[in-house]
């Protein structure tokens, strides 16, 4: 029997579907791909690395294979004092973000500067490297680009980590943000029509080049977090809030993330959650004046990654 009576219909079906794909996939793809990256996009790429979701570099989403963001106040090579500088350390073997792998991600002007001034043509996964986001000003026009400081300034990975004032593991933290489903309730997208006052500036067209995944979030059951680090930069508050949100915000419906401590505190002592709960209940009932102390987290705990990420959302 076949489809012979339906030849015209089948052809029309193919034409309709193909046209739809051209208009909804190919054309937007072309347009979006021509977007020039902003400095924010370059910073995000270097902070978060290749992918924050599932990837063979980090199949179980433990936060492996991610760069380290460091704050420098002295030159790692000479030891001389410098203005506070943010550098991104990719240890050997760390996967690189799209913008360092492909030459069409960041836009032609940025790519040209990154290669000519930033020596990003010498990028290598095996050797790793230290990266910076710098700005070139020409005729009053500011263009950000990526600089491979290992090549231009001789900053080695070890010396940079040693000279670092602060290590921010926001790349691993974004993995936690995705794995723990923070984005099911917290959006990362202040809306253009409102939100300016409480949640800050909406993101710009070029803020996302090279980022994966973008995790805008779609269902806002909780405050937008795109600029949360600018509103609240207290690590202690974050620590209490993640351990038990009701501790600082009695009406919060956020889940507790006490398990991200990994069962031990900074000194390696086991955390007794049952005892903590008992004391907290006593505090809520009024039979205790102060709530129980929240244990300080270990430096390599998952909660550290997550708090680093959240505080890094400026």
């Amino acid at each position, binding site marked *: 029997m076949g489809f012979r009576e339906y030849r015209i219909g089948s052809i029309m*079906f193919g034409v309709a579907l193909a046209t739809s794909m051209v208009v909804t996939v190919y054309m937007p793809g072309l347009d979006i791909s021509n977007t020039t990256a902003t400095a924010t996009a370059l910073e995000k790429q270097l902070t978060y690395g290749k992918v924050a979701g599932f990837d063979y570099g980090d199949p179980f989403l433990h936060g492996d294979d991610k760069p380290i963001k460091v704050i420098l106040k002295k030159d790692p090579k000479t030891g001389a004092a410098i203005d506070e500088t943010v550098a991104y350390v990719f240890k050997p073997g760390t996967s690189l973000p799209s913008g360092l792998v492909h030459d069409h991600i960041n836009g032609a002007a940025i790519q040209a500067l990154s290669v000519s001034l930033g020596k990003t043509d010498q990028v290598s996964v095996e050797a790793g490297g230290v990266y910076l986001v710098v700005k070139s000003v020409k005729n009053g026009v500011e263009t950000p680009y990526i600089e491979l400081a290992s090549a231009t300034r001789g900053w080695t990975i070890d010396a940079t980590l040693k000279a670092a004032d602060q290590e921010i593991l926001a790349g691993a933290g974004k993995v936690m943000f995705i794995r723990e489903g923070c984005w099911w309730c917290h959006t990362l997208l202040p809306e253009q029509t409102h939100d300016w006052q409480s949640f800050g500036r909406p993101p710009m067209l070029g803020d996302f080049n090279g980022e994966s995944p973008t995790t805008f979030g779609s269902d806002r059951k909780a405050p937008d977090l795109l600029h949360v680090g600018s509103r609240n930069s207290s690590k202690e508050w974050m620590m209490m809030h993640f351990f038990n949100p009701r501790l600082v915000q009695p009406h919060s419906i956020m889940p507790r993330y006490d398990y991200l401590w990994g069962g031990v505190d900074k000194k390696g002592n086991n955390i007794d959650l049952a005892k903590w709960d008992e004391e907290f209940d006593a505090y809520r009932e009024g039979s205790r004046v102060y709530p129980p102390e929240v244990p300080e987290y270990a430096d390599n705990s998952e909660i550290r990654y997550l708090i680093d990420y959240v505080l890094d959302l400026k």
Partner: protein
Amino acid sequence: MIKYMFSKEEDIPGGTASIFFGFSCLMWFIVGTGIGSFNAAKLAFPDFFTHYYALQFGHMRQVHVHTVIFGWIVGAFAASALYIVPALGNTKLWSEKLGVWNCMAWNVGLMLALSTLWFGMTSGREYSDFMWPIDLYIAFCMVTPLFINIFMSILNRRTQGIYTTNWFFAGSFFMLIIVFLVGNAPEFFHLTGLNEAYMTWWFAHNVLGLLITPVAAAITYYIIPKVTGNPLYSHRVGHLHFWSIVVFYSTPAAHHLMSSPLPEWLKSFASVEGVLILVPAVAYVCNILLTMQGRWSMFVENIEIKYTITGVLLAIPLNMQGGFQQTRAINWYVHGTGWIVAHAHLALLGFSTFAEAAAVYYGMQTMLRRKLYSLSLANFHFWMLLIGFSLYWVSMTIAGLIQGAGKIYEVPYLDIVIAEHPYMIVRWLGGTMVFLGNIVWLYNMYMTVKKGEKLEHGVLPHEVAYVR
């Protein structure tokens, strides 16, 4: 099931694959709504079941979504397609054996997909949360065999024309494979930035628009004429429905990202196309309701018609919301609020679940050759589903409007959380009713297999009166 996987094609009774799919989608429906009810409890009472890593909201939320979409909704589509397609072609299913294997691959795949997702192995992209190896498995081991079976059964039909329902079955499952492969391209080829964000919603939109809505409609195109005995009101309008789905419904993906910095032309285009979704929607609803002419008493008397028509009636608010809530004038108010959650449940738990429940009730009786065990239990299930869903929908819509007001006036967020609390409790109650109703349904279906009155050859279930 194992027995039929390794027997000869001619030894497998007709309808086997459909029955297996029917029971497995029922199981998944119970699991999915159970998780949904559990999640809702967590939103209402955040300290409920805390400390358990595996039972965290952030891990369970997407498992709920994918269990109901791929376990229940698409599973029920498979169960329906595997008996409706041959029936409409006056032929046998192309391969019962492939169908049985397909069902096995489906359940094993879902088990794998949901546990990895539960475990936290996600791509971080809404609706395409599964990691890409799982996406490939779904496309090639779950959907492709189903499509081949449907397509080959249509090719081998013994009727001259192809009925409306089968256009949708053939077209939608074909488009689902394409949507899976194109929509997950960001993961296969590591596309990044706004391309990734846009393709995420391209996938999400088309999974709903090119699969769930049209196939649920296709099922009602079969059930209503079959059970009422009325011919379809108009095939022309059916044509309009089918073609406008392909042309209009496949294009407005960007309307899910109206407040993101996507190119403005794309958002405007998507918004206009989004309103045009009303063309297939109105055509469809009119066509089905006009088919009911002279048989409206069956809406009360017949359980399959009761389910189907409720689904079709729920499609009216669904499409009115869908067409207009994505325009800039309304979207800025409701975007990202519980209104959208209510709308999503109206589509999946309202319209399409009611249509599929009818198809599963009807198909199981026909394939098992047994009359439903208890009409009272079926009615009880219907009302649990309808009241539970209505509580959910109304409470979430109100919560969404509160959130919207809080959002545009930039009310401190905590005040919104406090104001929403009562509605979160109602949402949980509604979801729990749906869950409990489904357990009753499974019992009813199980008893139908064991004790349902046997149907004589050549008799359809709705032609036999209930004896109980």
